[in-house]
C-alpha cells in the first residue's frame, strides 16, 4: 500500500563529497518497502513537485528509511538545508522491486552516483534472506572524493571494485570498463545496475553479449510517482511506452529499448 506520510529527519551522514545519506523516521513506509522501491519526497523551498529518491534502507523495527542524495539542483539544495527533527512529506513505497534470479549465486552490483542507494538495500536484503548469494560490487565516480558507498557495500559484498574517470582511486576509466575487465577473467550469474542511464545502457550491452540476466533501475522526470501523470516513460519492447514509476523502476535490461532520448 502506498502512503502519504510525514517523515522526521533523524540523521544525515556525509558519504563522500556532496553525497549524503538521509534517515527519516517513517513507520508506514519502513514497514513495507522493498529493495528497488522509491519514495517521492517534498523538497520545500522553491520547488513545486516532489522528487523521486531510491530507498537505500528500510528498517521495519526502528521505523526508519533512508536514501542517498547528491546536492545538484534546487530540490536537493533545499533538502540539504533541512535540519534534524524537521518533517518532510513523503509518498511511498512506490514502484516494483529488484528480484533475485533463481540459481543466481554470484551477483554483480554496478553503481554510479546515488544509484548506490537501492543497491545497498538489495545487498543487505540478500545478506539476510539469501546468505548463499555472493555479491561483487562495482562503483564508479568522477574522482576519489566522489566514490560513494564503498564502505557500506563492503559490509555484504565479497569484493568491491572502484573506478574513477581520472584514475585518482581504483581503476582509471568508466565503471563499465572495469566490469568488462572483471568479466574477462571471472564470471557473474546476474547483474543489477543503478546509476546514470548511459552507465546502465552500457551495462545492459555487456550483460547481453554474455547472456547474463541484468536488471536496471530507470530514471526519468516524474510528477507524481504513482501512475497518474504518465510523464516518466521508457520504451519497452513490444509494449510501447511504459510508466517507469508504475511498471518499474526496475526492468529487465533486455526488454528496454535503449536510445539517445533515454539519456
Amino acid at each position, binding site marked *: 500500500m502506498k502512503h502519504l506520510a510525514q517523515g522526521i529527519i533523524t540523521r544525515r551522514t556525509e558519504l563522500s563529497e556532496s553525497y549524503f545519506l538521509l534517515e527519516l523516521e517513517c513507520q508506514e513506509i519502513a514497514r513495507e518497502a522493498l529493495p528497488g522501491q522509491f519514495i517521492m519526497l517534498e523538497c520545500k523551498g522553491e520547488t*513545486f513537485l516532489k522528487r523521486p529518491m531510491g530507498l537505500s534502507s528500510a528498517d521495519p523495527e526502528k521505523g526508519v528509511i533512508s536514501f542517498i542524495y547528491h546536492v545538484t539542483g534546487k530540490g536537493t539544495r533545499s533538502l540539504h538545508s533541512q535540519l534534524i527533527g524537521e518533517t518532510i512529506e513523503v509518498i511511498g513505497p512506490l514502484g516494483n522491486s529488484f528480484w533475485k534470479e533463481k540459481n543466481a549465486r554470484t551477483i554483480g552490483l554496478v553503481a554510479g552516483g546515488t544509484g548506490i542507494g537501492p543497491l545497498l538495500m538489495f545487498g543487505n536484503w540478500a545478506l539476510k534472506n539469501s546468505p548463499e548469494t555472493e555479491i561483487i560490487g562495482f562503483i564508479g565516480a568522477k574522482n576519489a572524493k566522489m566514490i560513494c558507498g564503498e564502505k557500506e557495500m563492503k559490509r555484504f559484498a565479497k569484493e568491491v571494485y572502484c573506478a574513477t574517470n581520472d584514475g585518482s582511486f581504483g581503476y582509471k576509466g568508466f565503471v563499465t570498463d572495469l566490469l568488462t575487465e572483471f568479466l574477462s577473467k571471472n564470471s557473474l550469474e546476474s547483474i543489477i545496475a543503478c546509476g546514470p542511464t548511459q552507465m546502465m545502457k552500457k551495462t545492459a550491452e555487456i550483460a547481453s553479449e554474455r547472456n547474463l540476466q541484468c536488471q536496471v533501475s530507470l530514471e526519468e522526470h516524474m510528477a507524481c510517482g504513482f501512475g497518474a*501523470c*504518465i510523464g516518466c516513460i521508457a*520504451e519497452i519492447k513490444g509494449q*510501447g511506452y511504459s510508466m517507469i514509476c508504475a511498471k518499474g523502476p526496475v526492468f529487465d535490461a533486455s526488454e528496454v529499448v535503449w536510445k539517445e532520448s533515454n539519456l
Partner: protein
Amino acid sequence: MKNPVTTAAGTFGDGSQFGDFIDVSRIGAIIAKGASLEPWKGNPPHRLVETPSGMLNSIGLQNDGVEGFIREKLPRLLKHRVPIIVGVFDKTPENYARIVKRLNREKGISGFEINLSCPNLEKGGKTFCDYPELVKEVVSAIRKATDLPIIAKLSPNVTDIVAIAKSARDAGADALSLINTLVGMRINIKTREPYLAKNTGGLSGPAIRPVALAKVFLVSEARLEIPIIGMGGIQTAEDAIEFLLAGASAVAIGTANFVNPRATLDVLEGIEQYMRENSVNDINDLIGAVRAHSQ
C-alpha cells in the same frame, strides 16, 4: 454531482491510483482523460519538467483508443460509484463524433468533456479551440451524436475566450471547462536543448491560477447562461473558493493531485469548513458572488 469537486482530465488516472490515499467515492465527479478513436503512442521523453510554481508537460495524449478505454479503464472508473465524465479528443470532427457514438453504447457514463486543444488535421493543423468556427464544428458534431451532457474544455491561449465560449454554447455545449494549460517552454542552458522532447508543452499548476481565475471571471461576466467548471492550479479550498466566487459552479483539481494525492478531498473538506465558518448554507450562494468593482 453531489459536491462541486472534480478532477481535471489526465491527472487522475482511472482513479485506482488514488485508492490508497483517499476514498475516491467522495469526489463529486471524475473527469477522466478518456480516449481518441485509435490508440495514440504519446510523445517521447522528456515529457515533463518543473517550472516556478508549476510544471510543463507534453504527454501527447497517450491512450489506448476508445476500444481500449472501454475494455480497461472504464470498468475501473465506474467502480468508484461517482459520476464519470469521459474526455474525448481527436483530429477531425467526424472522429470526435464517432468516439462519442461508441461510448454512448456503454452504460454508466454521465457526460463528455471535449478537449479542443488538438490540431485539426483537415484544417492545416489549426488547433480547434483557437477558432470559434472550428469549436462550433466539433461541438455540433458531438451534439448530434449524444443526448448526454457535453462540456467544452477551452484553452486560455486565445485573444477572446468569450467568443469561443459563445461559439461552444451556441453549438450545444451544456457546460464549459476553463482552462486547459498555457503553452510554455524551458531550455537547459548547459546542453542548449529544450527540456521537453516536443520543445514546448502545457504549463499547469499554481503558476497559471490567476490566469485561469481571470478567464472564469471574464466568461462568467459575459452572462452566457452556461455553467463553468473552473480549473487551473487549484491546490487548496481557498483557491477553489476564489473560482466559485468568480463564477465557477464547480472546480477541478489537476496538477495538485500529483503533488498531494489527497488534494481533491482536502479541497472539498476545506470548502465545507469555509461554509460552516461563514454561515453559507447553500454553495450556490458562493457561485459568482464576487463583489467586482464597477468599471
